[in-house]
């Protein structure tokens, strides 16, 4: 079955996918936190984090978080009574805000490496 996408259903799909990704990421996050037992193992894993590949991964994680946050804000605003007439504009604005904040964030992320 094929069905035409529009900004509302895309926003929902992206929200759902990023939500699942974040749930999976939590496992990796807890793995890193489990190295907090003593300073040496913590430093070791923090050095690993300086690897450019990991940095790129962190940037992608940053994008996923931003998308999920803004999709969540949009839905919350609709639920608390913000007019549904503007739901499309809100989705487009969210996409714009995600891009903007991600680019600014990416600049600071990459400044640390290069």
């Amino acid at each position, binding site marked *: *079955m*094929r*069905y*035409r996408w*529009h900004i*509302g*259903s895309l926003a*929902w799909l992206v929200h759902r996918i990023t939500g699942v990704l974040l749930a999976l990421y939590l496992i990796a996050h807890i793995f890193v936190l489990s190295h907090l037992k003593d300073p040496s193992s913590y430093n070791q894993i923090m050095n690993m984090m300086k690897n450019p590949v990991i940095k790129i991964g962190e940037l992608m994680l940053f994008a996923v978080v931003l998308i999920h946050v803004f999709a969540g804000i949009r*839905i919350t605003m*609709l*639920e608390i*009574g913000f*007019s*549904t*007439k503007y*739901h499309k504009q809100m989705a487009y604005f969210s996409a714009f805000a995600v891009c903007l904040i991600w680019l600014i964030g990416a600049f600071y992320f990459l400044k640390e490496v290069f």
Partner: protein
Amino acid sequence: MSKFYTFRIKRYLPDQNPPTRWDEFRIKLNSMERVLDGLVKIKENIDGTLTFRKSCAHGVCGSCAMNINGKNRLACQTLVKDLPEIIEIEPLPSLPVIKDLVVDMTLFFEKNDKVLPYLINDEPPPERERIQSPEEQHRILESITCIMCGSCTTSCPVFWADKQYLGPSALLKSYRFLFDTRDRATEERLQAITGEHGVWRCHSIFNCVEVCPKEIDITNHILKLKRLAVKKGFRGGER
């Protein structure tokens, strides 16, 4: 201005093997004609076995809802000039198909029964009618315009995944009575819609609003239902 259009229609003939196939019909239609006119022409002149529902042909009865070019619409309300040259027509998604474009709407109407679609008021009737002010009427006016064509419920991804979900149409009907000042069964109605497969399943995807032929902002009504349910202390079916 007349133009040739190709109608690609998903056929379902239960007694043939395989039962599903795509048929193409090329017909000439003028710019004022609708998809329904094309279907009628095909049935009358090319293939009499083509089956679809139609009744009023003026966007009032809601019989001819079908999936046209990937979107649910009323065939009688869609002008061919607004569509590309190739028009793909499928039955409404996610409901069992009986033949060609005719789907079994039982499931859809069952949902409607679940939300008690009638006025409940035990107070003794007044001498004349139960008066409503124009403002009170205006609150439910949009929801009253629903023609129950089924476009919204069958366009809802939540309904595709969960056939027990009440769906936008039934929830809109529930709104129509919950926000009616003459109705007294608020508790009962909220009980009916706040279960596991009720109003909380709506994820504000807006597919229903996109397809509604009467341009009802259904999601807005469902969000109002959610806020009313929270205000009255209903959370997930239990108080």
